[in-house]
């Protein structure tokens, strides 16, 4: 046996998955409440003893962890034009598994600086200007940040001509400064990779320690990455496969949480029709977005705001005020589970609304413009209409009796201009395998892929590539 322990310190639960690399198989899993407020090892030890109870004492070869506990990886990003370097910076941060608490554009005002200091980000990503382009803005922002008295690390990833001036401006401030290649070196070209590597590196070396997790990082082989980043790794592997084993192809995943909803797509997203013009910043093949106002509990109100109480009431077949009341009850007591029939219906309607909204915001849009030569279609963002596989996770979905029904309604509600999937096969990650497999992929990609295929693989997809 070659056992490995995979740990996910979630904001609510610490989840363990024990894997034997030799067979290969999942030996068992267990979870306990995360204890980030006191000592995170209490929750971990509790989960460990539950796991030991079911599969016996195991001497693990490696213990790997990811974390979204203690607020996750909180980032503030600053760009120049919102639709260009602002968007590029945001996409890069999301892809690195961060929670982007605020995105700024143009010059930072003194109010902005106050807000950033109060928000205490784990990392600030400062961008602006293509290489050889605008440099005044990023330098001015670096100067403004230099005297805010904060000590959070700052990654500078803007116009390369301005790098040195920015570093100089921040010298002597409390901020550790890291210089990375530009997130948008030329117009409409996203270069997220190098910045994401740096974010992950900083997370590993500094953030974990700052969040009071050093007590566990000694017994572990390290907290390698933020949880969403592990999920993105797993999904990319599941989609693309390895040299030996074919993956499942293009896919979408949604993690519907209490406070936020994460959407991932591993898909090219090129226009389905060759006559469609693509505009705006091309988006990454492995894309992640986070909707901070869409969730089942803390953000139930956001779902109502985005979808409309009437519409949700229709789905749930209850009067509109009942939606408001139930949402308020869920918001004020996030641990509340739906009990009555009406509460269950409202819960289901909220899940549909959240899914509808998060998918619409993640996918691209198609706009028809009438020109003298006839109608022309323009696409912004990714076309996911042909993506046929959707993985779902999060309490409201994994315990839902009719997952397919929820997904189908959420898809049928979409605007015709939304480039969301038309028909999908919905699969449920009920055991939260994805983050564990993302961690495992760093050790043994083949095993991680095979274990995921056992759980999610459709017939015929699981086999060696000829």
């Amino acid at each position, binding site marked *: 046996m070659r056992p490995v322990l995979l740990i996910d310190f979630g904001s609510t639960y610490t989840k363990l998955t024990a894997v034997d690399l030799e067979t290969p198989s999942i030996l068992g899993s267990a979870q306990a409440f995360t204890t980030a407020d006191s000592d995170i090892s209490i929750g971990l030890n509790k989960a460990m003893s539950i796991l030991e109870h079911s599969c016996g004492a195991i001497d693990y070869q490696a213990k790997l962890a990811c974390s979204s506990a203690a607020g996750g990886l909180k980032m503030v990003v600053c760009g120049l*034009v919102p639709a260009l370097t602002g968007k590029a910076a945001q996409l890069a941060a999301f892809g690195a598994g961060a929670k982007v608490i605020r995105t700024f554009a143009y010059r930072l005002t003194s109010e902005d600086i106050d807000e950033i200091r109060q928000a205490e980000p784990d990392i600030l990503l400062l961008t602006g200007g293509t290489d050889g*382009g605008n440099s005044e803005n990023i330098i001015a922002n670096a100067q403004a940040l230099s005297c805010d008295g904060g000590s959070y690390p700052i990654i500078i990833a803007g116009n390369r001509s301005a790098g040195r001036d920015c570093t100089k401006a921040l010298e002597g401030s409390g901020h550790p400064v890291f210089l990375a290649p530009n997130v948008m070196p030329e117009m409409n070209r996203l270069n997220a990779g190098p910045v994401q590597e740096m974010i992950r590196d900083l997370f590993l070396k500094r953030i974990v320690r700052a969040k009071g997790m050093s007590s566990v990082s000694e017994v572990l082989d390290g907290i390698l990455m933020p949880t969403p980043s592990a999920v993105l790794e797993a999904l990319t592997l599941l989609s693309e496969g390895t040299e030996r084993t074919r993956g499942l192809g293009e896919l979408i995943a949604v993690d519907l949480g209490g406070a936020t909803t994460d959407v991932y797509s591993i898909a090219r997203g090129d226009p389905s029709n060759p006559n469609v*013009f693509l505009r705006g910043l091309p988006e990454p093949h492995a894309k992640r977005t986070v909707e901070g106002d869409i969730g089942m509990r803390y953000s139930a109100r956001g779902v109502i705001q985005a979808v409309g109480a009437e519409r949700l009431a229709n789905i749930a077949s209850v009067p509109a005020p009942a939606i408001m009341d139930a949402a308020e009850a869920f918001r004020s007591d996030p641990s509340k589970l739906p009990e009555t029939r009406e509460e269950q219906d409202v819960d289901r309607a909220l899940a549909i609304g959240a899914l509808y909204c998060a998918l619409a915001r993640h996918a691209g849009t198609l706009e028809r413009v009438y*020109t003298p030569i006839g109608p022309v279609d323009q696409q912004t963002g990714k076309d996911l209409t042909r993506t046929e596989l959707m993985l779902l996770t999060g309490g409201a979905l994994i315990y839902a009796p009719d997952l397919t029904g929820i997904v189908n309604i959420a898809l049928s509600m979409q605007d015709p201009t939304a480039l969301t999937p038309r028909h999908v096969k919905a699969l449920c990650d009920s055991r939260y395998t994805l983050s564990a497999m993302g961690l495992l992929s760093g050790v043994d990609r083949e095993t991680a892929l095979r274990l995921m295929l056992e759980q999610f693989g459709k017939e015929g997809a699981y086999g060696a590539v000829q």
Partner: protein
Amino acid sequence: MARTLVLGVIGADVHAVGNQILNYAFQDAGFHVVNLGVMVSQEEFIEAAVESAADAIIVSSLYGHGELDCQGFREKCDEAGLKGILLYVGGNIVVGKQPFEEVEQRFLKMGFDRVFGPGTPPEAGIRALNEDLSGDRRCGRSC
């Protein structure tokens, strides 16, 4: 250092050939060209010019609706902090056959620095750019 130009065809115009010819001609003449291609809105021209710290925006139009598409362009540039940026427009920029002098006057009044009629060779634009961007002057209008 090479001067940066933002180039594109404005509005709902999809004529791509002239755009490519200008792209090559300007690059060949030593300019750094940020080519946005066809169907470019005013906002996209301006955003690209902000990020790339462009010295000039070159607007093309062939389909006759250029006059509508270009209205308020200069004001939007001013608003976006691109005060005084060099603005050129050229092509078949109005409906029907109108005397070019009148057309030119209308576009100059809109705030464009130079207006080029149909059939202008790229060299004329390059010559004008070299003139307007010579020396320390980064832009055509006094700034």
